[in-house]
């Protein structure tokens, strides 16, 4: 039996908290595209090139982590009924550190320099630690949505491991003697992609796929063990790396990859059973992201090129899934905050637009088309590196997609502010 006091939006973060994260995120994709355009196909030739490392962090931290942190500040109360304490002042600190840290780390990885690397690692450590502390408290107090809570708690642990390993690698790059650097890089990558991103997709997916597309819930045979199997696989890989048993580490990673591949298949199957046949842009993004994840798993398991796996996971999933979710979350939050304001002021004479009116679907589809073109061009560029024009084409598409995403986001926010002003005018009458 439940009877809750509910949540007060007055104490939840104002809309500018998540929106500041959302609005900053495309800038990093634009920057990554510009770097790719400048460096050309050499950036994709090997995962060890300075540009590949800088690109990876611009997208993984600057875009994906930025969007997800902004969303969690606001959506944790909606999903699990627990507020992130002190969000109003912690969020700007977290974001400031994330932006500074990502830019400094990207500069350090691209051009070298202990100062940049240390600044990047230090700022990211402070910002992410502050977020993990605040979100950790919310996740301890959260209730309901058990599988989501479980996956999100473990995702936070994945972020912690990624951060610790990242700081260890920065130490190695600035001169601290680190044995077997490549094995540590693989472990850092494993915790980042499977532990943080993968686990977060599980946790968010369990909620938003059935909620936004009215599909059947995820089956218990998958949702109950999935997060724990991923965690076990990553712990096995960590222990094996410490012992120097590379072969065993691959098995650990493999079990986590297998679970996420099954999750992708089940997601596509759930979406096939959705109540409404309408295909919106978020669904298109989910489809392309799940297919990218499946293809990446097949390439990795068959010993294919790491750079191809990187493009599929980073662009297809890491760039695609948050973009698709932004097209749902930003209109939803805009509508919801206005609805709340309307009830609080009891001014029902100002009509609220439909949620779909905040971002025009037609332009969202064009944005998806640009994203898909970038994904295809860069996938082909890593498959046939000798076709030199594919990389700049992909980079230009990526920059265009980022610019249009940014434009659509600003339009959504502008509309929210316009209607908010109408309330003020109405209340003043």
């Amino acid at each position, binding site marked *: 039996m439940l009877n809750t006091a509910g949540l007060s939006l007055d104490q939840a973060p104002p809309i500018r908290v998540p929106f500041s994260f959302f609005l900053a995120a495309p800038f990093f994709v634009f920057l990554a595209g510009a770097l790719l355009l400048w460096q050309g196909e050499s950036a994709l030739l090997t995962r060890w090139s300075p540009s590949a490392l800088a690109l990876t962090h611009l997208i993984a931290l600057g875009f994906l982590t930025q969007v997800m942190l902004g969303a969690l500040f606001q959506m944790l109360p909606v999903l699990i009924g627990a507020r992130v304490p002190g969000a109003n002042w912690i969020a700007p600190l977290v974001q400031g550190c994330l932006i500074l840290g990502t830019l400094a780390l990207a500069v350090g990885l691209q051009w070298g320099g202990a100062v940049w690397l240390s600044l990047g690692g230090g700022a990211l450590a402070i910002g992410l630690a502050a977020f993990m502390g605040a979100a950790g408290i919310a996740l301890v107090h959260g209730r309901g949505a058990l599988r989501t809570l479980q996956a999100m708690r473990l995702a936070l642990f994945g972020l912690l491991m990624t951060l610790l390993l990242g700081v260890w690698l920065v130490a190695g790059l600035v001169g601290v003697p680190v044995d077997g650097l490549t094995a540590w890089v693989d472990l850092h990558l494993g915790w980042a992609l499977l532990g943080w991103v993968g686990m977060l997709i599980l946790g968010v997916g369990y909620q938003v796929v059935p909620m936004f597309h009215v599909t059947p819930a995820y089956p218990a045979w998958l949702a109950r063990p999935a997060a724990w199997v991923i965690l076990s696989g990553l712990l096995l890989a960590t222990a094996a790396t410490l012992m120097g048993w590379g072969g065993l580490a691959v098995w650990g990673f493999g079990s986590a990859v297998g679970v996420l591949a099954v999750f992708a298949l089940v997601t596509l199957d759930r979406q096939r059973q959705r109540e409404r046949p309408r295909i919106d842009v978020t669904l298109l993004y989910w489809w392309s992201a799940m297919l990218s994840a499946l293809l990446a798993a097949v390439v990795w398991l068959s010993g294919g090129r790491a750079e191809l796996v990187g493009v599929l996971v980073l662009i297809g999933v890491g760039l695609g899934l948050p973009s698709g979710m932004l097209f749902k979350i930003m209109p939803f939050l805009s509508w919801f905050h206005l609805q709340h304001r309307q*009830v609080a002021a009891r001014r029902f004479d100002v009509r609220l637009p439909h949620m779909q009116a905040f971002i025009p679907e037609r332009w969202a589809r064009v944005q998806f088309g640009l994203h898909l073109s970038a994904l295809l061009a860069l996938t082909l560029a890593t498959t046939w590196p000798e076709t030199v024009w594919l990389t700049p084409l992909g980079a230009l598409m990526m920059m265009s997609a980022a610019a249009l995403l940014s434009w659509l986001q600003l339009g959504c926010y502008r509309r929210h502010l316009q209607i908010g002003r109408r309330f003020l005018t109405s209340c003043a009458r």
Partner: protein
Amino acid sequence: MSPETDATLELDVRRLEPPEPLERILDTLADMPRDARLRVVHRREPFPLYDLLRRLGYQWHTEGADEYFEILIWS
């Protein structure tokens, strides 16, 4: 607990996508007589709804788990 009354409206929002459940519930409450009650069947616990209900002067009681929740609302 809620006052005893015969007038209980039923609203099933399990097959609606956000924000339609919230819109339907608020619309139904706006048209509902003050002495009636509303029983909402939902597939998730609607945390964002509660604060709005409190501001509008309603009380509520939620029961359920997993994929099935019943929210009884009265003023």
